[in-house]
């Protein structure tokens, strides 16, 4: 059997933790090989080793039958290994072509030969069906297309082994379908792919084989055709996983959040939220479904005081919180799990313990008269880490060193633990493993049962359908429809999200479907 990549008995230790413990991974020529594992299992670490970002403490790597030492990403590149990172590494102000050739500029007589490069980019894009315009600036294209630029970048450099680290976490359902097509096309053309994802559906849809990693150890490699999602899930977590559905009786109480005719403009001075009306009651989860960029972000920013409301009113428990300071709104009982955890949710250079009091550090018991009580902070952090199963070597570890999923769990722990009357959860399970998703969903439902109001924003229609009591469809900055999950399906929702109206649907600007 010929393997393009063999990683044998790889071991990698970080301070306080063995991230990879005797892992063997064999990838066949022309296959899509999935890596599945809980948050912090060691998937990214293993791939960073393959890409030359980390050096293994033990073990060997064989590429196309040849034992190699991959000491840097450049060496990986020479061996034909390319990586599409979860956080894109593109220069906003450059065009697609300029980004692709960056660091590998073709030259003719000392000058950069942009014309040839452009042609090559166009040809590659056509060959693999990537549909990328080489002349567009990065800042003007969608996230999905930016990702395809990253793919092109690796292809341009001659990669034939592509590593995708959670490529679908940032994509819309439509973009995910496109990506799946592209991956299939890539293997048809002779490339091999290693795919990290937490979504079992995707593994079932594209992967040929799947290696399961649990707590740093490779548990098994299975043929996807011979397995099913339930089996994969239990292999990965080590127990059976139930897919959570919100099935408690729906008994909404008083209005907690009431938004009246809210208008918000964005940085380009465009009206992105347009006379929007919405209410969320105690004891209910309202899901917001919409294509990315229809005003969701600005709506949340306005509720939380981060962005100015141009007109309209926002009430929390009948108190007017329109354009109040962020801290005031937090103190009145709003919790916020932000969409971008690195940028907005955590101070990555702070210890995970310090991050747990980011909004409450100034209040007793964490501080009195301006003096911090670090013992109390540590105690609190220790409890949250235990309660929410945040996997970290210690509370003193910088947040930066946690795996992506565990960073998210830390934020969720912090926000839910404050027990806010209104919890705004934006993509709360992005990048989480299914065990953790189950856990978070349970917590959200628990909060609902306790009589809290929850506003859920998610690009995952599954998540919206399973958790919401009511689904608000947002389009062009307005709630254009309000549906019950029991009375709709993903297809209809998909249509509504693109602006189609239901028969008998409500008029624009008003909250409908009550």
């Amino acid at each position, binding site marked *: 059997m010929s393997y393009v990549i063999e990683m044998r008995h790889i071991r990698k230790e970080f*301070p*306080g933790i063995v991230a990879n413990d005797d892992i063997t991974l064999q990838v066949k020529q022309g296959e899509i090989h999935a890596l599945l594992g809980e948050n912090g299992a060691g998937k990214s670490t293993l791939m960073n080793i393959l890409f030359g970002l980390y*050096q293994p*403490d033990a073990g060997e790597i064989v590429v196309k039958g040849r034992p190699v030492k991959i000491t840097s990403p450049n060496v990986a590149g020479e061996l034909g290994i390319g990586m599409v990172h979860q956080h894109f590494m593109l220069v906003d102000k450059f065009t697609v072509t300029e980004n692709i050739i960056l660091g590998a500029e073709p030259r003719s007589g000392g000058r950069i030969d942009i014309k040839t490069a452009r042609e090559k980019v166009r040809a590659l894009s056509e060959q693999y069906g990537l549909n990328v315009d080489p002349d567009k600036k990065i800042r003007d294209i969608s996230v999905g297309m930016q990702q395809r630029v990253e793919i092109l970048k690796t292809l341009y450099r001659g990669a034939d082994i592509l590593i995708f680290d959670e490529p679908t976490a940032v994509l819309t359902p439509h973009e995910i379908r496109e990506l799946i097509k592209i991956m299939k096309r890539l293997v048809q053309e002779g490339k091999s792919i290693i795919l990290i994802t937490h979504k079992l559906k995707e593994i079932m849809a594209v992967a040929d084989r799947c290696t399961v990693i649990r707590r740093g150890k490779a548990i098994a490699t299975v043929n996807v055709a011979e397995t099913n999602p339930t089996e994969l899930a239990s292999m990965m977590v080590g127990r059976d996983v139930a897919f959570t559905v919100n099935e408690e009786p729906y008994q909404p109480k008083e209005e907690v959040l009431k938004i009246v005719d809210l208008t918000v403009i964005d940085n380009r001075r465009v009206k992105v939220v347009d006379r929007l009306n919405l209410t969320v009651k105690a004891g209910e989860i309202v899901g917001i479904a919409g294509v990315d960029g229809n005003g969701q972000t600005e709506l949340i920013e306005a509720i*939380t005081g*981060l962005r100015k409301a141009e007109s309209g009113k926002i009430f929390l428990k009948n108190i007017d919180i329109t354009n109040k*300071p*962020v*801290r005031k*709104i*937090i*103190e009145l009982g709003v919790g*916020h799990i*932000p969409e971008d955890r690195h*940028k*907005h*949710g*955590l*101070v*990555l*250079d*702070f210890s995970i313990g*310090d991050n747990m009091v*980011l*909004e409450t*550090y*100034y209040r007793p018991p964490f*501080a009195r008269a*301006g*003096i*911090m009580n670090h013992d109390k902070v540590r105690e609190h952090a220790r409890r949250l880490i235990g309660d929410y199963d945040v996997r970290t*070597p*210690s509370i*003193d570890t910088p947040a930066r060193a946690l795996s992506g999923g565990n960073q998210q769990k830390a934020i969720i722990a912090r926000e839910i633990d404050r027990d806010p009357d209104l919890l705004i959860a934006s993509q709360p399970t992005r990048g989480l493993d299914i065990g953790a998703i189950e856990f978070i969903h349970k917590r959200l439902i628990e909060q609902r049962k306790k009589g809290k109001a929850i506003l859920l924003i998610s690009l995952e229609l599954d998540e919206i359908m399973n958790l919401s009591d009511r689904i608000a469809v947002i389009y062009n900055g307005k709630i254009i429809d309000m549906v019950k999950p029991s009375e709709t399906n993903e297809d209809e929702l998909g249509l509504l999200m693109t602006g189609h109206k239901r028969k008998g649907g409500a008029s624009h600007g008003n909250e409908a479907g009550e």
Partner: protein
Amino acid sequence: METKRANKWINALVPVIAVILGLLVGAVIMVISGYNPFEAYGSIFQMVFLTPYYAGETIVTMIPLILSGLSVAFAFRTGLFNIGVEGQLLVGWLASVAFAIHFADWPKLVLIPLCLLVAALAGGLWGLIPGLLKARFYVHEVITTIMMNYIALYSTNAIIRQFLYADGERTPLIPDSASLSSNFLSNITGGSRLHWGILVALLGAVIMWFLLWRTTLGYELRAIGFNPDASRYAGMNVARNIITSFAIAGGFAGVAGAMLGLGTYHYMSINASFTGIGFDGIAVALLGVNTAPGVVIGAALFAALETGEVSMQSLGIPNDLVEIIIALIIFFVASHYMIRWTLDRFKKGGAAR
């Protein structure tokens, strides 16, 4: 737990190695230029540690350097570059001297603390302005602080000429009731100008450490220094903290100025150019990796090298060479990534064995 200690250890080691490398390369340069490095370093050592007078003078140099370094380090923790120490120091200097002269008949125990307070307020006010401009109008603090330096230089000179002029291009002397000098300290250091300001400077270091690590203000400032966006999301007032941070940093610098006025010179001179203490403070903060104890050690090293210039000169070694060594040390600290990388390799090699 253990890893945390190991990391701290590496953090502390980096500047030490930088200093050693700087001295080594300095030695090589001396050899190349035909001087004996053992003799040169030996004479610095002897002077600073074994000659009481120069030991005292070294501490005198160190006092304002500590406070200047604290000022830069404090602002940097909030992600701000305080290039304006020089100006804040000048206004603090003038404020302390003017106050002392004006209230000359007040008792010492009241006057000195008040002079220090006035200097801190003056420096803080000078720091407040770039803070305000940054917070309200997003003007970059490097530009405004440099401008504020020039404004401070020329306006303090003008004020002295106009209101406080004495012979010798300076202000009159401050009264004894405001002086930090001490016969006792001077006597044990062979008649140097050593004064009680060293206690003020060390207290400053303790205050900086306390503010940053024990107060909610310090928590906020550090959070904003690392990630202003997340801090805003968490409800912190970023603009207000930028202003506060700059004001406190300016306060440290202002007290540095008071050390010159009440301790070293007992007057303020009309300055033809900047004192350089503010700029050295940037290097001291860098060397001290923006920690309070680090700044004290960094200031001591700088002061020792500066004193050493005199002894090198007596050996016929041009004092430019000392400047080169200082520059080398700064260079190696700035390239701490290189050192850290080597250390990591080293550690790994040790662990594998």
